[in-house]
């Protein structure tokens, strides 16, 4: 009996260990390996940091030439003091990985279409299809081109490879116990970092900002509604205010001429469903004020880039110093250098430049094998790339992507276009080689306007509005990117891919890009509005231009003088909506006050009293939002289509049409037998809005007064969408206000820099914190300031000792 007992007991022990050392999928959810994960000596408990969590005073890092000092301040911003450039970027990679390793790896996996590898194919293959989409849009193809240039340039090469070396030094120092929490939860391990991943990360940012287009949607609109209606609904330029650079007819250069025959208009309907158009509410603000308008007499520069706000935070703040550079600001975890920030002499910031940088070319394949396609009357060979997609717990999936010289053909019989017999090649400006790393390298070291201009000459995509201010008193704005010279109307619809002449014939020389230096009005600003008026000698077009924030910013700046840093903080947190001001009185005029129910009467009163500020406690804001979100799709019900992708007109143009075209055929609701007028829609949507509000109140057990912050419910979500790692925040603001905080989007970094002679004074905050670890105090240590509109004064050091009491701790990295 005894041997049997031994075998039995041993087997149970081994089985227990085995099953607790393995992650299981139960009911579609992955549970971590419980023994490994719950072991307090190695598992998630080890990710729980004490309040005063510090690094050892000395660390030995392979690859360093000389010691590097890291000073961490009270909000855990590292101030990196290196003695040479190689060590600087190695240390940046090391310290960034220390706080953000999981995030930087996950984001690059997501960019490259490798998420299935980590979490499986997902419900209805949603994750797998996402991965296929990333590969079919040529994300890796784009990153490889960026990497090629990076590798070939001695400076970019050094920066990217040293940064990677630092990340890898950190990865190699880890055992399971030290892994970021997410690795433990999802049960996988970090892999080696490569400079290609930095390229992927930058391209992923370009995808967020510049891959948006609506060519297919517009082509469908053309087929359904006709040219005249398309021009009415989707004008190229909405004359709503001032462009970023206002210099009518003062373009002192001879534009590049190409043939100006407009491309033929397509006549097809394209059956690809659910193509998304970028949210017109995503954008950013930046501005710089000349010393003539500030209290100190030196410029102030402000920037708040708006993004999908997630955790771990999008940005990682850092100061980088060697004898040749001293820059501070925010970096993107995964990319070396400072992206938005300042140094001893200058400050700079970015907003997204709205511009059409995507084209779709109609392809005629020789036959279903897709080995050849028609080009200029001949059959040109395609290139087929077999994508190997590793799917967790499943067999490998292979997906063939057909490439033409235009770019990949993303949608075909096997991906999202089952009913569509036409094919379109996808051309994205960021597929091309480019060298953005050099721009940031040079901006970090720039001393003056000329240096800034030279730095931007390396920049192609994603096109940005670069704002600038210098201690010598210059302010500037330059819209920088690689832009094709377009014929009128080109790029608005799909193009004929059988003629090479349909492609870009030339690119706008960088010196012809829209730019401005020290304008008379004493400030430069951008908020994703149109770059220049119609006198700019090149045709420009975009998915949409911002219509409201830019006017509010310009109005305030124009009216202000003796501006202080506090004034600028207030402006960044300004909740006023010009959209509400422009449409709400019009809507209210259409109500029949006598015919309202009691709850509608209350709503009517609240709206009449509302001052158009989206403050956290504004009740009118909630009513207006409910009204607009009911009215807008009701007007454009003809534009909703399950089979075809279509795009809504902008809010600005919708309001414009409501006011100027009272008889537009779109006002009639297709789902009712009656013929509705605009007044009917306004009244119906008002009733529906009040119903929505009543329902919301009931569901949320709200007292009689509804708060905008509750109704909006700003939610900062962890990248894995794990509810427990996210935060619901009480915060005012609206996409159309300068404080462009909507439910999940908003200012991802708020920075105000006073560029003063005795050194920059910088103030900033972001919705999260420096650490990516949900078990760290610094996972969200800046969040409260962010939601309260407060700022941290950034500690900008000349030498480590200057930190004094403001140093939380410091660590020396020694060569190993």
């Amino acid at each position, binding site marked *: 009996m005894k041997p049997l007992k031994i075998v039995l007991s041993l087997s149970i*022990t081994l089985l*227990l260990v085995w099953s607790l050392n393995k992650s299981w999928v139960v009911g579609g959810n992955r549970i971590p390996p419980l023994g*490994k994960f719950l072991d307090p000596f190695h598992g998630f*408990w080890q990710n729980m940091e*004490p309040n005063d969590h510090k690094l050892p005073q000395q660390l030995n890092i392979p690859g360093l030439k000389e010691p590097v000092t890291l000073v961490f301040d009270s909000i855990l911003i590292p101030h990196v003091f290196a003695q040479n450039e190689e060590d600087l970027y190695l240390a940046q990679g090391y310290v960034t990985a220390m706080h953000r390793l999981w995030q930087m790896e996950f984001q690059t996996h997501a960019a490259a279409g490798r998420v299935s590898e980590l979490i499986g194919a997902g419900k209805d293959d949603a994750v797998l299809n996402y991965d296929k989409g990333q590969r079919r849009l040529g994300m890796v193809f784009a990153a490889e081109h960026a990497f090629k240039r990076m590798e070939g340039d001695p400076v970019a090469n050094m920066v990217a490879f040293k940064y990677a070396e630092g990340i890898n030094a950190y990865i190699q120092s880890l055992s399971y116990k030290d892994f970021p929490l997410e690795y433990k939860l999802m049960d996988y391990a970090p892999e080696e970092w490569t400079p290609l991943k930095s390229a992927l990360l930058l391209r992923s940012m370009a995808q967020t900002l510049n891959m948006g287009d609506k060519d297919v949607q517009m082509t469908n609109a053309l087929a359904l509604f006709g040219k005249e209606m398309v021009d009415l609904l989707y004008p190229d330029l909405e004359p709503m205010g001032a462009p970023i650079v206002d210099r009518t007819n003062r373009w002192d250069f001879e534009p590049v001429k190409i043939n100006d025959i407009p491309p033929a208009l397509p006549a097809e309907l394209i059956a690809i469903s659910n193509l998304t158009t970028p949210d017109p509410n995503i954008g950013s603000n930046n501005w710089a004020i000349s010393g003539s308008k500030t209290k100190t007499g030196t410029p102030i520069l402000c920037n708040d880039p708006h993004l999908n706000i997630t955790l771990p935070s999008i940005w990682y703040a850092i100061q980088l110093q060697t004898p040749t550079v001293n820059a501070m600001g925010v970096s993107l975890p995964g990319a070396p250098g400072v992206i938005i920030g300042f140094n001893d002499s200058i400050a700079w910031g970015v907003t997204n430049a709205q511009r059409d940088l995507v084209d779709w070319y109609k392809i005629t394949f020789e036959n279903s094998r897709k080995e050849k396609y028609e080009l200029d009357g001949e059959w040109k060979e395609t290139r087929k790339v077999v994508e190997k997609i590793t799917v967790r717990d499943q067999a490998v999936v292979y997906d063939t992507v057909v490439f033409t010289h235009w770019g990949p053909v993303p949608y075909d019989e096997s991906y999202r276009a089952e009913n569509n017999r036409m094919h379109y090649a996808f051309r994205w400006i960021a597929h091309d080689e480019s060298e953005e790393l050099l721009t940031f390298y040079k901006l970090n070291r720039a001393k003056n306007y000329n240096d800034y201009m030279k730095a931007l000459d390396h920049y192609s995509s994603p096109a940005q509005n670069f704002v600038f201010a210098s201690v010598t008193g210059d302010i500037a704005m330059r819209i920088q990117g690689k832009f094709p010279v377009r014929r009128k109307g080109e790029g608005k619809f799909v193009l004929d891919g059988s003629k090479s002449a349909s492609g870009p014939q030339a690119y706008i020389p960088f010196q012809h890009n829209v730019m401005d230096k020290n304008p008379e009005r004493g400030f430069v600003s951008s908020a994703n509005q149109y770059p220049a008026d119609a006198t700019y000698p090149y045709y420009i077009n975009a998915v949409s231009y911002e219509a409201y924030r830019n006017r509010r910013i310009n109005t305030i700046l124009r009216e202000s003088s003796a501006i202080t840093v506090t004034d600028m903080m207030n402006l960044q947190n300004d909740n006023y909506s010009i959209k509400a001001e422009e449409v709400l009185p019009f809507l209210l005029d259409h109500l029949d006050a006598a015919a309202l129910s009691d709850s509608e009467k209350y709503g009517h009163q609240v709206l009449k009293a509302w001052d158009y500020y989206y403050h956290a406690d504004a009740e009118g804001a909630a009513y207006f939002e409910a009204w607009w979100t009911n009215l807008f799709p009701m007007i454009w019900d003809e534009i909703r289509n399950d089979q075809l992708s279509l795009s809504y007109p902008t809010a600005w143009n919708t309001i414009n049409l409501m006011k100027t075209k009272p008889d537009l055929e779109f006002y009639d609701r297709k789902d009712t037998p009656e013929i509705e007028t605009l007044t009917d829609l306004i009244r119906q949507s008002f009733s529906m809005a009040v119903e929505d509000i009543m329902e919301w109140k009931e569901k949320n057990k709200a007292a009689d007064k509804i708060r905008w912050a509750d109704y909006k419910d700003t939610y900062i979500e962890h990248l894995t969408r794990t509810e427990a790692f996210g935060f619901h925040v009480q915060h005012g603001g609206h996409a159309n206000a300068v404080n462009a905080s909507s439910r999940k989007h908003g200012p991802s970094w708020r920075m105000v820099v006073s560029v003063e002679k005795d050194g920059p004074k910088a103030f900033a905050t972001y919705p999260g914190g420096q650490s990516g670890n949900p*078990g760290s105090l610094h996972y969200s240590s800046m969040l409260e300031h962010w939601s309260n509109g407060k700022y941290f004064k950034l500690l900008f050091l000349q030498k480590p000792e200057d930190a004094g009491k403001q140093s939380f701790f410091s660590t020396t990295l020694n060569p190993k």
Partner: protein
Amino acid sequence: MKFITKIIFIILLAWVAEIYLPWWSIAAAAAVGGFLLKSKANFLAGFLAIAVLWLVKALLIDMSAAVPLADKVSKVLLVNSKALLMLVTALLGGLVGGFGALTGSLLRGK
């Protein structure tokens, strides 16, 4: 007394093992304890030793934690309570320790 000695021995051995080895070293530590020291109720000794070790370690970490991460993880694992999560931690560690100690004692023979 032997029972208590065994528990303490396993705790110490598992504690040292966890410094150098992965989590499953607790099974080996418990087995060594079961093999070297003679007592009654071997399973219970191993179970209590590891359960106490894990529970105390988890409590100590939690006491100085800056952020209530255990609460958050308890939500992710759908147990929805830090106390329950600690109990599950102790229980799973205990089971492995218990069977480890039992196996060790059986190997020792009489």
